[in-house]
């Protein structure tokens, strides 16, 4: 077992665990959006940043991928952590204004408004890539993937056409943290998600 502290509280974790896994095991809250137990962590949303400190030295790491180590001191509620969280939430509120899931999560962490204007009032997807990762890693089909890069990055099937590689298993729908897959689904499969939900119910 590995011994270390989170917020000055002594905790134990098994070798190979991440800070996030250890924290959740001990009931210590860290927000996440792109994390799901079913797939390998990808460290994309950066909401789970925590601060490591050792004397005067400190740095921020993504707790979903940082492996626990003997004697480290982890802090989940420092000023720097809050600064990263607040800005990500403010930007998410403006990027995905139509996602009640994101608004609710932001509100839980005290962010209820944003200084930024929304570009697309209907948008819900923040391209965390959970859907494509579950399709690749769990289903094994890779029917969808993240395409393009930078600000244009999005989720889709090749050439933005419905693909018959998709078997409509619905895994992507179930892992999507923002509800975005509901509307994306029919463009991938050619079947509206509402029908899909009825079929699998």
């Amino acid at each position, binding site marked *: 077992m590995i011994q270390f502290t989170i917020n000055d509280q002594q905790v134990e974790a098994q070798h190979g665990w991440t800070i996030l896994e250890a924290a959740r095991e001990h009931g210590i809250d860290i927000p996440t959006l792109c994390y799901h137990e079913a797939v390998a962590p990808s460290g994309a949303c950066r909401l789970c940043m925590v601060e490591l400190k050792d004397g005067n030295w400190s740095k921020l790491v993504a707790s979903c991928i940082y492996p626990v180590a003997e004697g480290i001191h982890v802090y989940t509620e420092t000023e720097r952590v809050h600064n990263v969280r607040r800005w990500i939430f403010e930007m998410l509120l403006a990027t995905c204004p139509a996602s009640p899931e994101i608004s609710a999560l932001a509100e839980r962490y005290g962010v209820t408004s944003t200084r930024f204007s929304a570009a697309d009032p209907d948008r819900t997807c923040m391209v965390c890539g959970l859907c*494509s990762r579950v399709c690749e890693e769990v289903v094994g*089909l*890779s*029917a*969808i*993937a*993240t*395409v*393009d*890069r930078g600000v244009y990055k999005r989720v889709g*099937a*090749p*050439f933005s056409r419905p693909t018959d*590689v998709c078997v409509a298993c619905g895994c992507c729908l179930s892992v999507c943290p923002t509800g975005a897959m509901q509307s994306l689904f029919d463009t991938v499969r050619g079947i509206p998600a509402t029908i899909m939900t009825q079929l699998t119910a």
Partner: protein
Amino acid sequence: MAPVGKDMDTILEQYPAKPEYLIFLLQDIQSSYGYISQESMQQASDHAGVPLTQAYSVATFYQSFRLDPSGEHEVRVCLGTACHLKGGQRIVEELERRLNVEAGGTTADMRFTLNTVNCVGACALAPVVVVDDDYHANTTARKLEKHLKKLEHDVTADGEGQGHV
């Protein structure tokens, strides 16, 4: 569309059937055909043994790949820092107006594709525009237009630029 260089079978034969050769395959297709069609992407991904989605991700991630046929001549305006300071952006805007096409697009007559490039590393020549393989140093939209007009009239025009690499 007929390939300018190697044909599809030759391209596929060159590389072992491994995922690490996907980018090599797409690069060769791009340079032979000027773009990557859906069929050729399917063939490349089958050969490399990766899902089509991976090939599509790769082809849309890297700037040098195009999914639509490109024009007969490629005009690349450098937007490296030195070129930016010396008016590269203005050249882009001016060429967009003169060619009546947005950067990244191809003129309706398929003669010219206008692209921007983040630094060709020829900063001493700023602002630089590369037309096909010709480097145009210290250039202006006006000088370029003259050159492009020449290209338009003479399909075989060669070496009209200041020098090619």
